[in-house]
């Protein structure tokens, strides 16, 4: 069981860049510094990617260390640097994600 949990958790993502989708539909990119069993996250060097259907993606620097409460987290994605560099954020038009409706 302990081995399962280790594999299932976020351990492999520590100190890598991740993309977090929150329950209110925001997308935060930062370096994962820590986490716990409730999926609370400690994020370093964060910025938010603000999507808009009218203009390209706006990157808002949040900076510093942030703690995101697990209750508020939907998806934690492992950001692939190669794929990310191929993206042309200024050309992407999309409505912001909807908030989670429980």
């Amino acid at each position, binding site marked *: 069981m302990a081995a399962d949990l280790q*594999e299932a958790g976020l351990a492999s*993502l520590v100190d890598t860049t991740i993309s977090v989708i929150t329950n209110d539909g925001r997308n935060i990119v930062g370096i994962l510094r820590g986490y716990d069993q409730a*999926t609370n996250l400690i994020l370093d060097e964060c910025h938010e990617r603000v999507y808009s259907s009218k203009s390209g993606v706006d990157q808002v620097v949040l900076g510093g260390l942030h703690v995101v409460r697990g209750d508020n987290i939907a*998806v934690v*994605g*492992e950001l692939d640097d190669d*794929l990310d560099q191929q993206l042309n954020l200024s050309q992407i038009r999309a409505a912001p994600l909807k908030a*989670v409706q429980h």
Partner: protein
Amino acid sequence: MLFYSYFKTLVGKEVTVELKNDLAITGTLHSVDQYLNVKLNNVKVVNEAKYPHMMSVRNCFIRGSVVRYVQLPPGSVDIEILHDATRREARG
């Protein structure tokens, strides 16, 4: 623990997870934990034109609390086993 055990038998299969924000993500089930958080590998968002928010993500962790549906490959659902297990669980 029934569905935890059940999802563990599906590791390695291709599943589609629909979230409570209407985002649907297809990928190979990598792992599941006691909260039914799931990790998917080689993910592809359904309707990527509308949802380009995860284009640079290949592997992801989805929190169990935001999952609405998990769509399973029909061939890997053994209804008999599920029947028996749910009855056993209901009896206690």
